[in-house]
């Protein structure tokens, strides 16, 4: 278990807490290691043969040889404009997509050759808050996914209760999912992601379309409970720079399939210039290049 860090800038690198975390990171193990990862979406061979004039070029290159390391117990924010390749990267790490080239390992397991092992240590929480069976209650949905994650029914019931308590959703678990509010859906998705006590959480915009109060609650939950208390490694895709700053230790900025900047918020601000992270981000992905 790790210490609880308050949601303030005192934990940022540069401060004592930040330096301590920097040191911890350098000593800790790598949870995600990505080497020259590429992904090209092309018209497949089956379709090519059916087409009269198949395209000569190889399709759309979404990831262009990115490399990245995420350390155990770290929260890394993945930022970038729409179409930068963030969700593609998350789907490769969750084994939903096969990369075109390069390598990616999670807790030492290769995402292609050892996909089965990867699925045991990773939880993926996609951006849409749906992804559940609408006519089943929250509890029944959780039971279904628990059994699919190799939990026995008894173990499943115990863990479901724990994670529902954790996300403060125990009261609504007997309501059909289709009657859930947006906030309840997001909480249930987070509860499902925590069900197997995974080493690594891949979160794709977990606060999208939520009101500011609930956004704040979920950020606090991620920072204080998931990262600080439970010690999970988190890869968080977000469009909110505030969220990235509040939840994450480091940020990685992806633009047109390339990693343009990785570092703490302060490091990124320093490298790209600008008054704040918004300006630094704009410079990182805009015409103005970083150092």
């Amino acid at each position, binding site marked *: 278990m790790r210490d609880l860090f308050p949601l303030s800038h005192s934990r940022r690198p540069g401060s004592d807490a930040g330096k301590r975390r920097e040191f911890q990171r350098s000593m800790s193990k790598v949870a995600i290691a990505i080497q020259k990862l590429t992904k090209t*979406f*092309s018209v*497949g061979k*089956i379709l090519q043969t059916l087409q009269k004039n198949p395209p000569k070029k190889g399709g759309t290159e979404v990831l262009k040889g990115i490399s990245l390391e995420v350390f155990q117990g770290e929260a890394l924010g993945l930022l970038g404009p729409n179409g930068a390749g963030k969700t*593609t990267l998350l*789907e490769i790490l*969750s*084994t*939903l*997509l*096969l990369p075109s080239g390069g390598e990616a390992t999670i807790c030492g397991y290769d995402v292609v050759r050892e996909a*089965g092992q990867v*699925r*045991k240590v*990773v*939880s*993926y929480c*996609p951006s*849409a808050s*749906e*992804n*559940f*069976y*609408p*006519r*089943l209650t929250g509890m*029944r949905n959780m*039971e*279904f*996914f628990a*059994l*699919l*994650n*190799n*939990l*026995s*029914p008894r173990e499943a019931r115990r863990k479901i209760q724990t994670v529902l308590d954790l996300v403060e959703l125990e009261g609504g678990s007997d309501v*059909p999912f289709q009657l859930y509010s947006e906030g309840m859906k997001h909480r249930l998705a987070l509860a*499902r992601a925590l069900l197997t006590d995974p080493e690594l959480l891949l979160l794709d915009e977990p606060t999208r379309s939520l009101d500011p109060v609930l956004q704040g609650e979920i950020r606090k939950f991620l920072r204080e409970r998931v990262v600080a208390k439970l010690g999970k490694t988190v890869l968080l895709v977000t469009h909110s720079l505030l969220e990235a700053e509040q939840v994450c230790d480091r940020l990685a900025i992806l633009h047109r399939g390339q990693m343009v900047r990785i570092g703490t918020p302060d490091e990124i601000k320093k490298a790209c210039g600008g008054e704040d992270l918004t300006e630094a981000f704009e410079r990182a992905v805009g015409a103005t290049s970083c150092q």
Partner: protein
Amino acid sequence: MPVAWKAWAFFKRDLITDLSYKLSFAFQVVDILVGIGSFYFLARILGKAAFRGYEPFPFILVGMAVNGYMSTSLVCFAQAIRGNQPLGTLKMVLVTPTSPIAFVLFSSLYPFVRAALDAVFYLLAGTMFGLSLARVNLLAVLLIFLLSVAAFSSIGILSATFTLVFKRGDPFLWLFGGLSWLLGGVFYPLEVLPRFLQHAGQLLPITHALVGMRAALLRNASILELLPQIGVLGLFALVGLPLSLLAFHLGVRWARITGTLSHF
């Protein structure tokens, strides 16, 4: 044990979902009864000679029951894909330590149980219209049922693969579903067809399932007597199932490469 729990999870999911549509159960019962009634009166105007020695009504009734579970076998695998894609649950299942093949096979459990119950209901309801079930070889019925489900499923899994890769316009469903009505002998004996169509009908698993099921249900045929049908259905299953599962495996891999797992 996890495999059994997973199978149970899929079965329970589909049972609860089905039970949540309470009215549909009632309408289905009415639908079956109306269908049986129509065929009963139609059968009364047909002669006995043209039905291979069977009474026309039992002949058609068994045809409908077998056709019912064949239809389920053909569509349930593709429906498992199609139903989960728009919900986003297909992806969520595939990120768990559950293989795509387990997903598609376990998703068929409830539809098969429903189809078997429907078939039993067909026959029981048929007794209200004079169907006699006094000469049933239950063991042979079960064997023919299991083998024919396995044979039909190989086509159903190919259909699911097609759905995964091409999304719509499934030729397997059209080919086997449509041709089975025409050439399989569901409503009439194959002998009424031109000879070349009779030969074509022999290539369909339903033809053999129907011959076997009618003999086992209506005239107490022994397993030995049914060996030709058992052999053909077994061959269909033995060759078809591994091939269709391989095709499905490749289809999933294809969708993972092209990023089209959730496209529909």
